[in-house]
């Protein structure tokens, strides 16, 4: 019988997985960029970013740019590791040994 690794529930969600996948290749991204790329609403994105931040997968920094509030997100080492584990698990589902 094939045993499947359990998928990280935090990453096994469409929007949160999109966010993490986006941040994997970025040094840092601002809120508007993530919103544009994921096609999510500001409210939903904000909620999901906070969930990822609470889990320690990303860091959120709030600053100002040209007198406007700027929210910048960055993936952490923990988030990167979780992403790697998730991708390995997904591959296991697609190509079971």
């Amino acid at each position, binding site marked *: 019988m094939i045993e499947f690794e359990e998928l990280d529930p935090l990453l*096994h*969600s*469409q*929007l949160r*997985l*999109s966010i993490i*996948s*986006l941040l*994997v*290749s*970025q*040094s*840092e*991204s*601002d809120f*508007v*960029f993530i919103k*544009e*790329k*994921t096609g999510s609403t500001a409210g939903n994105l904000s909620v999901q970013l906070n969930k990822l931040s609470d889990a320690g997968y990303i860091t959120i920094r709030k600053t100002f*740019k*040209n007198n406007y509030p700027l929210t910048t997100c960055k993936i952490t080492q923990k988030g990167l590791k979780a992403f790697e584990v*998730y*991708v390995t698990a*997904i591959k296991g*589902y*697609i190509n079971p040994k």
Partner: protein
Amino acid sequence: METKMTPEQSLQIINEMINSAKSSMNKHHIYFLIWGWLMIASAVSVYLIVYQQNNPMGHLSWMVAGIIGGIASSLYGKNQAKKIKSVTFIDKAYQYVWLSYGITLLCILFGSIGFKSDPGPYITILTALPVLVTGLMLQFKPFVIGAAVFWIMGLISFFVDEPTRLLFFSVAIFFGYIIPGYMLRKQENND
């Protein structure tokens, strides 16, 4: 409410997001064109003023070009920074490589002034390094070819006189900055 995903859908999301966030380094073609044309203009000026008219003041062309290039680059950079919404790891690596190059270049220039020696061949060889790294990071072959031209021209420059070095330097800049810069601009317009 969260949608249930199949493993295939998960992989598709990962691929789409990573592809959509690919580095947009081609916006930096302008730096190659600014510095490329300035360096060629300086090399030609030095050749004409210093070696044809025997006026050593012609060497100031390098300084004038450096000031113009520095101001133009920083103004453009500041303008770009206002528009940029994300910074990729490639963007960061690119900045660090060129920053290291700039510092090393200044050290060589000051050292050469102190020893009253011509830094030309050293600078030409040194420039191959960031150009090659840029080419490899962007997977953009014209820069890789340009880097090879820098190395070849730099090496030959050790065995020729100073006016001829200027010619070799200009050739290297043309193949390493100007041609790849315009090709990068074309790619940017197509994207």
